[in-house]
């Protein structure tokens, strides 16, 4: 029953969900941005086209993106164990989340960078800019609104995946939903966790979209 479950159960679960989502997102972006820049740069119209590097990276990214998250979660258990020292709890969900989100984010970043007008890049080249300067001061700066929209999508996706990790004892709202709601047939718990997840996703989405809109100077 509703009252039977301590309110602190939810607050802890929410805190865990935030923890998993933000730590995973942060690490995934630390990997995803350079990877996305590398994909963009080595692509056909990139700064330093290199079909070899591009095709290999692209293949790796696609492979990781096509593995269903639940399967990945189990596949990387040994890695998780090695890094985190445990395979249960909120921390243990971070390695699989990062492995699954980084390639996804890399693609998002690549496609955001592709939106930058080639003419602007050409103008920067004509002023004697180095490729590094172009990446930082033109590509990443000009695509900021698009990157933020990408972040809204990526972070909410990561949050959704983190809930899935509850299935293997990952902690957070998903864990509560499965342990209390599903295994113990407590529909109220199930409902509350789902509603909480929806609200959190909605808030995160709105915040990032708001920042993206505000930061876009083209409007």
């Amino acid at each position, binding site marked *: 029953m509703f009252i039977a479950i301590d309110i602190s159960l939810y607050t802890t679960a929410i805190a865990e969900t935030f923890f998993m989502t933000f730590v995973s997102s942060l690490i995934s972006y630390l990997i995803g941005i350079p990877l996305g820049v590398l994909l963009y740069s080595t692509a056909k119209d990139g700064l330093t086209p290199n079909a070899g590097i591009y095709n290999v990276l692209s293949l790796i990214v696609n492979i990781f993106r096509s593995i269903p998250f639940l399967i990945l979660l189990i596949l990387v258990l040994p890695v998780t164990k090695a890094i985190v020292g445990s395979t249960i709890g909120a921390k243990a969900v971070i390695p699989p989340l990062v492995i699954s989100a980084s390639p996804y984010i890399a693609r998002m970043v690549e496609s955001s960078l592709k939106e930058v007008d080639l*003419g602007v890049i050409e103008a920067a080249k004509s002023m004697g800019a*180095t490729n590094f300067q172009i990446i930082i*001061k033109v590509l990443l*700066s000009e695509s900021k609104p698009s990157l933020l929209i990408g972040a809204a999508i990526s972070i909410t996706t990561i949050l959704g995946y983190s809930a899935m990790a509850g299935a293997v004892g990952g902690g957070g709202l998903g864990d509560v939903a499965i342990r209390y709601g599903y295994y113990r047939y407590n529909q109220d718990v199930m409902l509350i966790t789902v509603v909480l997840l929806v609200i959190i996703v909605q808030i995160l989405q709105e915040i990032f979209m708001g920042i993206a809109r505000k930061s876009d100077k083209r409007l």
Partner: protein
Amino acid sequence: MAIIEIKNLKKIFNNQAVEVTALQDIDIDIEKGEIFGIIGLSGAGKSTLVRMINYLEKPSEGKVIFEGKNLGDLKENELRQVRKEIGMIFQNFNLLEQVNVIKNIMFPLEISGVEKSKAIDRARELLKLVDLSEKEKEYPSKLSGGQKQRVAIARALATNPKVLLCDEATSALDPKTTKQILDLLKKINKELGVTVVIITHQMSVIESICDRVAILENSRVAEIGNVKEVFKAPKSSIGKKLIFGATVNKEEEFVKIDDKTYLRLAFDGSITDKPILANMILKIGMPVSIMYANTKVIEGKVVGQLIIEMPNDKKVQYQIKEYLDENEVTYWEVV
């Protein structure tokens, strides 16, 4: 010595086993301090040529020599230094959309490692030059086309380049704004001594500010020379077409009535300014309507085109043609 020497330049693009020769046998010397125009129809190779002047595009053969340095011999970092001495502006302005006007102008200074306070001072100086001081904090999306091009010009001049390359810099602008931008380019040329290279498909741009012109056609230079001389007596067929037929594509401006006949008269400069039309009207004894006219007198010679409406009377029509034949005026019926 010319500031830019283009020697036997050739560019071939390889696209999926299809070879496109964009340029060949190009030899052009651009003198220090001049305004040099390059004109040609779409696809003639103008953009490719201008992009090879600062080596954004590498030639397949031949050389580009800037101030005595063969750009092909330079290392990547030396080339970047040279590019700071060659400014460039574009048809689409290519401003950074996410930063404001002053930051756009500071961009080339920033990437050259100029101290921030000095960069701001320099940017303000340039804003004054292009007459946009009050737009310092504005974002490009809030500016008109002409204002955007002014910002682009200020940005291109930030590093004190010796040359300014303009690729269709006025093609996206209306005639009035075009004139303002051309005046600004002229001022930059005169007051700062910057050599200006202008790429365009508009004859009027060449005529109004260039000292010399090269006419490109099918990847080659069809004609090159002093603007006044080329306009007076173009030698190549493309030159004749561009100069005398400069208005051919504007003929939609006159509305044709189906059952009427119209005659296009072309004056190629072989007739001195005797009153051809007035004499014709006197001869046939009947008024003739001029539907469209774009002629000018260059050194006493008439150049340009006229479209007249033919009277309905077949006999009069015959008389008109006979008169034009006698006076060696080229004409044809407009269909």
